[in-house]
């Protein structure tokens, strides 16, 4: 008998796949649907204090090996999101509330609300590369990251995950800051800051000019980040970046991730991607005479 069950800082998942923040997670019904289709957890769209429309289109560029997006953190705001959470938590998988803010106090306020709405954990967005004043702009400062995590930990009892950006040479310092602030887990990585230019139009394609690159194009970067973080921090790591097959997920877990998130894979492979990845994991365990998927976490370091 094989088990895909994993536990991250007390958060129990029936399998190690999660829906990544920003994909099909603006409404309760869509999150519930992804959970019903086999995700081990779903992460909400990043929610702030106020409603935000995000950027005008174009917000997405489709590439052969991924996407570049600059949605601009659209969301209905934490008050209106209560209704969506009420629906999302009816689904079969835990709901992790993703949050964005500019200050430790605002992060703590939002986290407390998410906990009240029934979130099983919160994920702090300190990594979005396309929203001025938020995300990556604060997530590359280890002192700021430490303060934010510390304040959020004071405000809630549920696990606190911090999603980091690969757009820094100080990744390890930021990872250590999460740990020092009392963070329960690291999610690595958000998108890689990027852009696309139309030769015919002689201008950037995205309204925001720059955005975040995701999908298979960044798998090698995400893997490297997880591998390096695993060597330097003791808290669990959730891997994300270009995962859309069992093999991709196994690579991340061998690099040190206890679980993985899938975002672009939903667009590229469809909503069946969670079941495909987890079925393949069971096959892998059986073929290799293993009983638990946790056995492969970090084996690439040995």
């Amino acid at each position: 008998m094989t088990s895909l069950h994993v536990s991250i800082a007390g958060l129990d998942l029936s399998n190690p796949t999660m829906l990544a923040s920003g994909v099909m997670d603006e409404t309760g019904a869509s999150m519930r649907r992804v959970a019903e289709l086999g995700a081990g957890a779903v992460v909400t769209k990043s929610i702030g204090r106020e409603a935000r429309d995000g950027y005008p289109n174009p917000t997405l560029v489709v590439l052969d090996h991924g996407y570049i997006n600059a949605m601009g953190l659209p969301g209905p705001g934490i008050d209106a999101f209560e209704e969506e959470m009420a629906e999302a938590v009816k689904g079969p998988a835990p709901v992790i509330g993703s949050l964005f803010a500019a200050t430790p106090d605002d992060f703590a306020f939002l986290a407390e609300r998410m906990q009240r709405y029934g979130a099983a954990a919160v994920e702090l967005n300190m990594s979005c590369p396309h929203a001025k004043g938020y995300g990556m702009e604060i997530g590359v400062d280890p002192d700021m990251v430490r303060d934010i995590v510390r304040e959020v930990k004071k405000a809630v009892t549920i696990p606190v995950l911090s999603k980091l950006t690969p757009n820094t040479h100080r990744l390890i310092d930021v990872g250590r800051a999460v740990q020092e602030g009392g963070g329960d887990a690291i999610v690595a990585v958000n998108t890689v800051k990027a852009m696309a230019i139309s030769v015919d139009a002689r201008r950037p394609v995205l309204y925001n000019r720059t955005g975040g690159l995701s999908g298979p194009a960044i798998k090698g970067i995400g893997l490297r980040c997880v591998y390096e973080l695993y060597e330097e921090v003791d808290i669990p790591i959730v891997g994300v970046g270009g995962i859309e097959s069992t093999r991709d997920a196994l690579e991340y877990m061998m690099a040190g991730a206890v679980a993985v998130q899938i975002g672009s894979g939903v667009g590229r492979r469809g909503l069946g991607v969670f079941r495909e990845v987890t079925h393949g994991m069971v096959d892998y365990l059986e073929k290799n005479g293993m009983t638990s998927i946790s056995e492969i976490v970090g084996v690439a370091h040995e």
Partner: protein
Amino acid sequence: MNDLVRVEEVVREGRGITTLRFRHPGGVPGQFVMVWVPGVDEVPMSLSYQGELAGITVKNVGEATAALSALRPGDRIGVRGPYGKGWGIPKGRILCVGGGVGMAPLMPVLDAIDDPSSVDVAIGARDGGEVIFLERARSRSSDVRVSTDDGSLGFHGTVVALAASMMKEKRYDMVLGCGPEIMLRYLLPACKEAGVRCQVSLERLMKCGSGLCGSCVIDGFRVCVEGPVFYDVQVEGMKEFGRCRRTASGGITRA
């Protein structure tokens, strides 16, 4: 090696309604493309023509559609897609019901059916000036009828009332409907009463068009992937259909 396409033809179809033709092969009837007007916006548009010379038909209702309506042959636009699930076209007799510019995604259905006696058309509009594709429909179907809200052309009344009378007169195997949501909301029970299966093409605020961002979801279904065409049984289970839609922030606006 171009990343934009040239507008080959511009046709005025009706008052404030314009068709643009461009080279973008592929797709099945009912699918849509994301159309980028550089410097203005990128919007989803149903294909009103498919094949080597594709086409979209635009009603001028806002900034993006005004920019599209002002294009001239030789101007260039970005086109990606086709995306989404198109119409299921069964064997048997089909009734296409289009309200206003909602005729657009139905036209490739007519092009795909080579027997004019097996597909009928009900074209509805507010007035005669907004009736589009009448001659094109007549060239593909032997029974094309028109309704206008003000009675200036054809049947005086709604296109749903016209379709209901056609369903009483003839036996259909499938109704395909596209138009304002209020029209579709009445079309579904009209079909049910007549005992005819129905598909409708839905519209929601769409951003990425590629199944990622979730802005176009209706009850958890992505209009850009699982739609835009949905079967009657799917729509009947939707709590948001005919009742509310989402704004750019994802907030709810009730109808």
